[in-house]
C-alpha cells in the first residue's frame, strides 16, 4: 500500500533502486500505524454525538430545523440566531420519580443541549418561526434578503 513514506519520486536518483530491508520495514511500520490510527479515530462510531436528534434541511427559500426534544416545554427551550449561526439551548426540569412506584428500568435521559449550528447563508431572524408540537421543535429560518439570488439584466452596450 502506498504512503508518503515509501513513495520515491521518479525524479530522484533513488527511484527503482531496491531499498534496504531496514528502510522497507520502517516504511511498513508507518503504513500500519497510519491505517490503524485513521480507522479508529475517524470512524463514524467514534464521532457519533449523544443527544437529541436534530435535522437541518435546506428548503430553498428557508432552512428547516427539527429537533426531537421529548418531555420539554416552551419555557425550557431557548433558540437564538446570530448572523449565520443558530443556537439551541435547553434546560430540562429534572423529572421526579412517580410516587409509590419502584423503577424497573430507566433509559430516558433529559434532553439537555447547548448546540450551535453554522448555517450556509445568513437568515432573517425577524421572520423566523418556531413551533413545539409534542416535544418536536420545528424552526423555519427564512433566507435573508441579501442572500437571495438576484438576476442581473444584461444590457447591450
Amino acid at each position, binding site marked *: 500500500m502506498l504512503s508518503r513514506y515509501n513513495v520515491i519520486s521518479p525524479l530522484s536518483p533513488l527511484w527503482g533502486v531496491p531499498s534496504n530491508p531496514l528502510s522497507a520495514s520502517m516504511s511498513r511500520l508507518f503504513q500500519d500505524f497510519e491505517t490503524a490510527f485513521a480507522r479508529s479515530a475517524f470512524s463514524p462510531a467514534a464521532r457519533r454525538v449523544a443527544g437529541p436528534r436534530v435535522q437541518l434541511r435546506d428548503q430553498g427559500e428557508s432552512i428547516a430545523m427539527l429537533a426531537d426534544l421529548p418531555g420539554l416545554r416552551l419555557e425550557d427551550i431557548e433558540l437564538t440566531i446570530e448572523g449565520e449561526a443558530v443556537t439551541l439551548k435547553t434546560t430540562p426540569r429534572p423529572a421526579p420519580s412517580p410516587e409509590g*412506584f419502584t423503577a424497573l428500568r430507566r433509559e430516558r435521559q433529559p434532553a439537555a443541549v447547548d448546540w450551535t449550528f453554522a448555517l450556509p447563508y445568513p437568515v432573517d431572524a425577524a421572520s423566523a418561526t418556531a413551533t413545539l408540537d*409534542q416535544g418536536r421543535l420545528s424552526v423555519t429560518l427564512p433566507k435573508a434578503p441579501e442572500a437571495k439570488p438576484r438576476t442581473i439584466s444584461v444590457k447591450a452596450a
Partner: protein
Amino acid sequence: MPSIQNDRTPSNGAASDGAALERAKRAYWQVTPELDLYENESGYLVQLNVPGASAESVDVQVVGAELHVRAEQAPAEGRADVALSAFERHLELPSELDAASATAQLRDGVLEIRIQKSAAARRVRIPVNTN
C-alpha cells in the same frame, strides 16, 4: 442498567401486520423509543419518548404479558423533505396484564401508559392458622 431480556422489539423490521411495510415504503426512520418502567403492587407505569408523534398514530396493544407500542411522527404541511421517525417497542412485563384497565396519555412527546396486573398475578397474603 437492568438487563433487557424482556425487550421484544423486532430488530429486523418485521411486524405482526402490514403497517411496518407501509412505514418502510414511506421511508420512516425506525426508532426504538427509550422508556422508563415502574412497578407497584397493583400495576405498571411505562413512559416512552415519542417526540413529535401524532395522537392518531399512537397504537398501544396488550398481548398477554406483552405491551406493543407504535407511534409515528406526522408529516407537516410545507415540509416535504423531512425525515420522519416511526417508533416501535415491544416489551414483555414480568406479570400478566389486565388489558381493560390500561390508560395511555401523550403529553410533551412522552407517552405514559398505566396498566394493572391481572387479578391472578397480584400478590395475595395467605393467613396462617395455628392450632
